[in-house]
């Protein structure tokens, strides 16, 4: 194949890529993914690892942190 036909083929693949992104964006909007974004942001939290609590510590450190935090809470 000639250079120009490869360029066109490459451009077609890139355009297809772009089109697939546009299609997915369209789906997302129609599906209501862009509504209620505040709720969406909280979808990573659950009962086991709830909002408002840090969930990762250096090994053995969480006790110290917890007791400090509780002291603060008790006095406030």
């Amino acid at each position, binding site marked *: *194949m*000639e*250079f120009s036909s*490869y*360029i066109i083929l*490459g451009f077609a*693949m*890139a355009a297809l*890529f*772009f089109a*697939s*992104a*546009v299609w*997915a*964006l369209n789906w*997302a909007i129609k599906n209501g*993914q*862009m509504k*209620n*974004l*505040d*709720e*969406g*942001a*909280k*979808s*990573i*939290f*659950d*009962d*086991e*690892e*709830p*909002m*408002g*609590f*840090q*969930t*990762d*510590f*250096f*090994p*053995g*450190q*969480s*006790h110290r*942190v*917890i*007791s400090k*935090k*509780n002291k603060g*809470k008790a006095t*406030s």
Partner: protein
Amino acid sequence: MSAFASFFTSLNPYTASDMAVREKLSAIDRSMKWPALLFIVSGVLWLLAGTVFALLTAIKATNPDFFGSYEWLTFGRVRSAHLNAMIYGWSNNAAFAVGLWIMARLCRTEIRHVGLLIIAGIFWNIAITIGIVGILIGDMTSVEWLEMPSYIVPLLALSYALIGVWGIIAFRFRQTGHVYVSQWYILAALFWFPWLYTIAQIMIFYEPARGTVQALTNWWFAHNVLGLWLTPMGLAAAYYFIPKVLGKPIHSYYLSVLGFWTLALFYNWAGVHHLIGGPIPAWAISAGIVASLMMVIPVVITAINHHMTVLGNFRKVFISPTLLFIVFGAVSYTLVSLMGSTMALRSVNEVTHFTHFTVGHAHHGVYAFFTMIMFGSIYFIMPRLLYREWPSSALIKCHFWFCAIGITIMLVALHVGGWIQGMQMNNPDIPFLDTVRATIPWLHMRSVSGMLLAIGHIAFAINFFWMVFARYGREDTEGVPTLLKPETGEGDAS
């Protein structure tokens, strides 16, 4: 105040009545246990192998005679072995583990057919092993980022397909209405990587395009492996773990969604900037430069989001291994991307092209950003997979500080050294050999930084395998590890 307290009590799993939800979540984690372990164990082994290749390469750059009498350890081969071990061995294995685990968790569904996933993972790693051996014995191709010999490509592609598909199927079975931004990134990346890989393989090796179109395809592929595979996986992890560990939603969720879609639309075109000044149509290069600058939009959006979420919580960052690594990675993402956009400008590229600056930039992206985020993610995931704590706090700190300082030294050395090299090469009064000699001190500095990174990796590997093997069979006897205990403040507070 009491309303505030009761609000948190209502979120406390030990007072919540919804046992079914908790059981389901641990079932999801359990479904990923063996595949994630397989991918992370292989990833860590590849990381160590890649580090050895990296040190050999770095030392050979200043002392060419070092192991110079073995033809399978010549510079060209170990350099490519290093690149492929790090990208396909370490990065891909880590991305598989972290990406699929986050996907399963956010979809609130188990990963299906883990048996097939594990078999595919084993074949993926066998294929990489054959590929790296192929590179060392001299079967490598001359195409950067695709050096593994062609005979291993079908196995790689097939194993990838059987790994990636389970992430997509988990998405199909998702139990949640809302698709979180990390899910978008992972889903897109799982589609993008096979697209890039197969098209690059076909247009370069199986049905080779003529002339410079091969170079175009090559750089479209190589840049997009970073931009459309590793970057989305890294950002997905950052968008999940930063708010998750802090226990606070992302600064602006609207911006994060906008960031994803602008990345999806612009990044694909950016790779051409590697060929600035090359013999390809000027319009193609200009399009690449425009796209590279457009990338400033998603980068600034992501930067605002990540940094504003962390702002004011630095104390929490320093008590969490996950955040320590991921915040380092997020800061690096901002820096590396803005520098990348600048490097795409013709006037800047005139200096940085063909110098160590580019090498520094690649390490900035794949190591300081992606790898650091993967380390952080692994620190979060492993205790939840094994129900066991990391054995040593000191080794985690050792890992972080050696890697953080090591990579910083490397980036300074390669960027400063590379810039000087570029200025000298553009000056016709300086003989070429002098420009090469001037890089030697910087290359020594890089070797030293590589040794620091190696120490960090060894600390990580010791801690990791200690965790996996040492207390084997004793899980559950001591109950839940402290770091998994929710902050109830009851029972365990002294």
